[in-house]
């Protein structure tokens, strides 16, 4: 006996309608994007929805260049981004991130940036980088659509801004002439990151895996590596104790101590890339 029903909508409209119908029948829906996080949780019985709405056949898998941004559908996977000439040329931070996704060729073909954003795991690759990129999130439901900055969309650890009946249809990444560097720290090839740093120069480093949501560190003009270290250390001192991130890979104190170094590496990488 199946533990849940499934639907495979053919468009964003159909997905929104499927979610509306599940809620109208007092069901509990689960949206599956790439499947790399949700499907194992379903297999283990950790998630027990009445209905799964799988976005795999919605056709939301386009990467489109507009005048001022790159828009990616919810189903765009890491390999598509890695192979995209537009992403390579115009979004170096995202390209660097995709090149280092854990899980080999397979996960790169299955995992999605939109899914990682929705999962909102503080230590994972996407959240801090999307904040650094000023990503805008396209949220859909049967009744409405709205656009939310990634920074607001990430409400807490594994907590996003989606309400009942809503799902992420895509992400808009504004284009800028900024230099970018992405660096993550992990102890083993197959591990989740301990922390991530996304530098956008001039002016910004965003840290993941040090707090429940990404931490934005503003850098002084013409910053040096020493300035980056000092700015990161000062920022982390001001993270309230209830917001500091700690998990089985590392405690807060370790994260606090390595963060300046990881941020400097991202800064140096960004300095080395052409504007």
């Amino acid at each position, binding site marked *: 006996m*199946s533990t849940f029903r499934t639907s*495979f909508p053919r468009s964003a409209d159909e997905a929104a309608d499927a979610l509306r119908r599940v809620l109208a029948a007092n069901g509990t829906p689960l949206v599956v994007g790439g499947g790399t996080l949700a*499907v194992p949780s379903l*297999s283990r019985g950790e998630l027990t929805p009445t209905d799964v709405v*799988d976005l795999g056949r919605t056709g939301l898998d386009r990467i489109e260049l507009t005048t001022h941004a790159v828009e990616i559908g919810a189903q765009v996977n890491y390999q598509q981004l890695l192979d995209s000439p537009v992403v390579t040329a115009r979004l170096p931070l995202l390209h660097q991130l995709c090149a280092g996704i854990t899980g*080999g060729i*397979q*996960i790169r*073909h299955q995992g999605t940036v939109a899914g990682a954003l929705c999962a909102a795991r503080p230590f994972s690759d996407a959240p801090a980088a999307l904040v650094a990129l000023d990503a805008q999130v396209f949220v859909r439901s049967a009744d409405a659509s709205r656009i939310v900055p990634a920074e607001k969309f990430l409400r807490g650890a594994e907590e996003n801004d989606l309400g009942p009946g809503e799902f992420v249809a895509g992400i808009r990444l504004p284009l800028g002439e900024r230099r970018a560097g992405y660096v993550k720290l992990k102890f083993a090839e197959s591990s989740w990151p301990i922390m991530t740093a996304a530098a956008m120069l001039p002016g910004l480093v965003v840290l993941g895996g040090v707090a429940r949501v990404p931490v934005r560190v503003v850098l002084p003009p013409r910053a040096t590596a020493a300035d980056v270290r000092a700015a990161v250390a000062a920022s982390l001192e001001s993270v309230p104790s209830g917001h500091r991130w700690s998990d089985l890979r590392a405690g807060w104190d370790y994260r606090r101590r390595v963060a300046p170094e990881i941020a400097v590496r991202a800064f140096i990488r960004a300095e080395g890339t052409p504007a």
Partner: protein
Amino acid sequence: MNDETLSVELEVDGRTGVVTVEQDTTLVDVLREEFGSTAVRAGCRNGDCGTCTALVDGRCVKTCLVLAGRADGASVTTIASLGTAEHPSRVQRAFMEEYAFQCGFCLPGMLLAAEVLLAREDDPSDAQIRDALSGNLCRCTGYVNAVRAVRRAAELRD
């Protein structure tokens, strides 16, 4: 069919079939239980070990992460399509020549990831090879011979 089942049509290694499965079934179980395709192994069911790897419409994926209905209409290629005992593919030959496996449980993921890499890169670096294989866990060989095998396969021609 009832409310809890669905009909799935697949072409698996050139053989087409339509099966009826429970809606919560993942592709790995459809391939093994309904199509008898044990060239796809059931390992961790968590997306970690890579032994359920197959090419689905040409994409190298872990089939434990795919709900059955998502794959409806897809064409699936497993390692059973790579070569025969008489004529193994160059990747299969290289894995044998370099003693790159012992128990063979990880081979579906190792071989398919290597095939996909070599289809993209004629002459991959060791870093590219390690990266490509990193979605596959092997508990026998320690990966060194697997990397050597992919390097060897790049030199061989089918």
